[in-house]
Every structure is written in C-alpha cells, then in structure tokens.
C-alpha cells in the first residue's frame, strides 16, 4: 500500500484526560477513508492530528514517510487541509477568503481564474466572489470554506462533518466536489461523518472510533448498559422492549461491550449450544462497501444492531425491511471495552 499518512502509538490528552489512543493507522494515497463514531469518540481530534493542527502527546504522525516535526510542520501543513465542522470565514470578501491560502503560499498570477474555478467546483457562481463573509447562508459559507481548500489542491483533504449543518443541495455539491478532487488530482480524502449511508457509498474503508480507540467493527453493536447481575457468572443488559442481552461477567465493573452476532434467521428457532438469541425488526439492508457483504440493520427495541449476513447476495434477497428476524450471539464472545 502506498501510504500517505501513518500513525504510530499516538496518544493525545486534554487537561490530563486521555482523548485518543491509536496504536497503528495507515492511510493509503488517493483513498477515501471514513471516520465514524459517536460524539466524543475522537474523530475530530484524529483529523486535527492527521492534519498537523494538533500535536500528539506521544507517538508519531508521518506524512509521506517523513515524521511531522517542528522543522517541517509548515511544509507538511501546506500539503494537508482540514475543513472544520463549523465553517469560518475571515471578515473579508469571498474572493479574499479563497485567495488567503494561495497568498500565504506565495501564489501570484491568475488568482482570479483559480478562485472562479474553485467556486464553480463547489457549485457556486463566480459572482459570489465579490460577496462579503456576512452575506452568505450556512451552506454557502461551508461551500466557500471548501473552495478555499480545494483551490490549494492539497495532497490530503480532511473533512469534519462536512454536511452536518447544510441543506441537501449544498451536501450534494460538497460531495461532488470532493469526489472530483480525488478523481482529478488524486487527493486523499478522510471524512468524519455521522451520515452513515454517505460514508458507506463513497468510502474505500470506514474506521470506527469509540472512546478514542479504533474498533474492529461497527459501533452499532456497542451496548453501553446498564448491566445487572443475572447470576454469579452472568450479567445482562435489558433492552427497551424487555429482551435481555447476556454476557459473561467481566473482571471489572461492567461498562460498554461489543456484541457480535452470527447470522440472521428468518424464523424463530432454538438457539444453539452456548448461544442466546434476540428478536428484532430489519430496518435496512445495505452492502458493506469494502467487501460487498450484505449487512442488515436490525432494531431490538431502541437498540440498533448491524449484522453481517454470511450468505451470498442471492440468499440475502429472502430478507426485507420490516421483517422480524432472530439474531443469535454467544455471550462468551461479547468483548468488554476498557473505560
């Protein structure tokens, strides 16, 4: 893999509280990586570390095999761009906002041409260039912020919830622009978003973060408790529909845990040995983008689980949204997450 960004043993804390702890992460050149996770899972912090805006307390972040240091941080940061969640524009015209990055890089010549091109890329008319920062809607401001980064043609563009607070038209323009950047210039994209279907559609790979750590699977299957004692060796988490998820009692206080399900079953059946089951309703069936494996989102009360279907696509066609299914799991295979 041609790695453009590499993280090794990175730790980041704020006011003594650990925020992020990542042992190993490689981002391939010209790839699209999605970052998913609940609020406070460390997505924004990871983007800041990758873009060089923040420095880790320990460990290393490398760009094109060169570890980011004080000596090369400006050079590295000029090749990486981060689009923060909240669009922020300088108190200047749109033209000057987009030109800012070019100017601090010593850009001269046909700035206007580049700026108009960047505006068109994000679906804005070049006449927007003369508008002032306070004459734009939220969606337009977000698109101007993106244009200010696209005009720099960065090696790697990181987007933090780019479509969180914009209308559908702006979201569509943002999506089209970043995909074009990848296709035309080979820009590596890293996108943090709660918009799961979007990430599933466009990402080559999705990284799930939880409590500042990378999870091996989707965070949908995390149960946060509360857990109650069932017997000496078992604890249970009661779902809102009254069903109970059982797990082997951990050595520490029961906190959050990941439940892995075997497969879906359309009919209610007796669970196998050492297995437990839950009944739920299929919300949606999608494809796991990286491996083209069908997966179903199943609701059991308020809890949503994602179950990868082991069969092929043909077999998956026997399921449909709204269908009631049985999920089997092994209490012994429930993984407890460290607090």
């Amino acid at each position, binding site marked *: 893999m041609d790695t453009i960004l590499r993280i090794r043993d990175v730790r980041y804390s704020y006011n003594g509280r650990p925020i992020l702890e990542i042992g190993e992460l490689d981002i391939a050149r010209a790839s699209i990586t999605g970052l998913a996770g609940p609020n406070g899972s460390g997505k924004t912090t990871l983007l800041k570390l990758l873009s060089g805006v923040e420095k880790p307390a320990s460990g290393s972040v490398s760009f094109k095999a060169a570890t980011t240091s004080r000596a090369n941080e400006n050079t590295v*940061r000029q090749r990486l761009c981060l689009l923060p969640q909240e669009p922020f524009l300088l108190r200047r015209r749109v033209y000057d906002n987009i030109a800012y990055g070019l100017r*601090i890089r010593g850009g001269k010549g046909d700035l206007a041409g580049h700026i108009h091109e960047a505006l068109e890329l994000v679906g804005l008319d070049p006449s927007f260039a003369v508008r002032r920062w306070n004459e734009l809607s939220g969606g337009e401001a977000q698109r101007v912020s993106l244009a200010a980064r696209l005009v720099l043609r960065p090696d790697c563009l990181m987007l933090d919830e780019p479509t969180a607070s914009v209308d559908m038209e702006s979201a569509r323009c943002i999506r089209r622009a970043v995909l074009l950047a990848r296709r035309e210039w080979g820009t590596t994209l890293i996108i943090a978003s709660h918009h799961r279907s979007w990430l599933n559609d466009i990402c080559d790979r999705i990284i799930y973060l939880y409590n500042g750590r990378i999870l091996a699977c989707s965070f949908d299957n995390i149960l946060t408790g509360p857990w109650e004692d069932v017997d000496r060796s078992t604890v249970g988490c009661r779902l809102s529909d009254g069903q109970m998820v059982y797990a082997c009692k951990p050595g520490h206080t029961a906190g959050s845990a990941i439940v892995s399900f075997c497969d879906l079953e359309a009919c209610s059946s007796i669970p196998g040995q050492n297995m437990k089951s839950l009944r739920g309703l299929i919300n949606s069936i999608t494809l796991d983008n990286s491996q083209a494996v069908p997966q179903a989102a199943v609701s059991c009360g308020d809890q949503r689980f994602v179950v990868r279907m082991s069969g092929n696509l043909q077999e998956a066609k026997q399921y449909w949204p709204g269908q009631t299914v049985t999920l089997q799991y092994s209490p012994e295979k429930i993984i407890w997450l460290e607090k």
Partner: protein
Amino acid sequence: MDFIVAGIVKAFQLLVQGDRETYSAVLATVKVSSLSMTVSLLIGIPLGYCLGYADFPGRRSIRTMVDTMLSLPTVFIGLLVYAFISNRGPLGEYGLLFTLSGIAVGQAILALPIVIALTATAVESLDRPLRLTLLSLGASGRQIFLTSIWEARLGLLVAAVTATGRVLTEVGISMMVGGNIKWHTRTITTAIALETNKGQFATGIALGLVLLAIAFAVNLSLSFLRRRA
C-alpha cells in the same frame, strides 16, 4: 460670561491669523503625540496579542497588572520619567530632560497599558475557530499573528483612539518632563494651563479649540477607517 465669548472670538482670530506662539504649541503637541503613539502601538500591539492569544503561567497576574496601570496618574509617570532622565538619573546621559523626546517617553508609558489591554481584549474576543481555520489552511505562526491582528482591526482602532485621546489631553507629563518651555516644549495642554494662570482666557480657549479639532480629526479618520474595515 463675556470673557468666555470674547475668548472664543479671539480664538478664531488667533487661528485664522496664524499666531506663531499658538501654532508652535500645536506643532509640539502633534509631534510628541505622534511619536509616543507610534512607539506605544509598535510595542503594545505585539504584547497585547501575546497577552490575549497565548496561554502561559502568570498570564492572569500580568493582565491584572496591565489593567491596574490603566489608572496610572500622569503626574506620577512624569515624576518617574523625570527621576530617570534627570542628570542624576540612570538615563541622564541621554539628555532627554526638557525635550519633546522626553515627553514622548512619558506619554508612551501612559499609552502602553491602554494599547496592551485593549489589544488583548480585542484578540480574546476573536472567534474561536479563527486559529483552527488559519492552521488548517497552512498558515505559519507569523501569518497567524498578522491575520489575527487584521481580523481584530476594529478593536485595535478603538485602542488607538482611546490611547491617543489620553496622550493628547495629559498635562502632568508634559509639564514635569518638558518644563513648558516656550517655542520648544510647550504643548497645547501646558500652554492652556499657563495662559489660564496668566488670565489669558482667549489664548487658552483658542488652544482648547485646537485640541478639540485635533481630537475630532483623529476620530474622523479612524471612523472612516472603521467604515472601510
């Protein structure tokens, strides 16, 4: 009441006829306040930026000290500067006593806390995402400083106007350090004090009007800049 009206009339006569003594005081005031404001802005803006932007141990204590110095009495500054630049003082060899440069030193000390405190406030009130935005666009430390100062320009204008007002209207420093020497270190405010003591109200009022006109011109130009900003 008559003498006040007569004073205003005479004031216009002095100004229109180009009275040399009046214009000498005006020129001295413009010179010394320009010099002191230049120095205080050059030193005060970077210091105010550091105080408002950076987070370092003792920052709150320094901020309290700077805020306290906003109330420094001009006569006390005059006394200190006099002690330092008089022949017996540590800076006596530079011959600054009874010169416009000496007055400018004192006025710069007077204006500095105002510039620092108001710059720090302006920088503190900048939008939080500004730094992140600049960093994410690849700006270096120097570029972040210059852009932040530009973004805080309205606050800096307020700092400059406030400090200029204080410098233009002070008497204590000009009197003690400058000595109110005719044709040499006599500024508008010291001239007004002297003329009033002599009972020459007309000259005093004339000089007062000039002072107001200068303050008006400064505010007018800054107001123009603020509209453009």
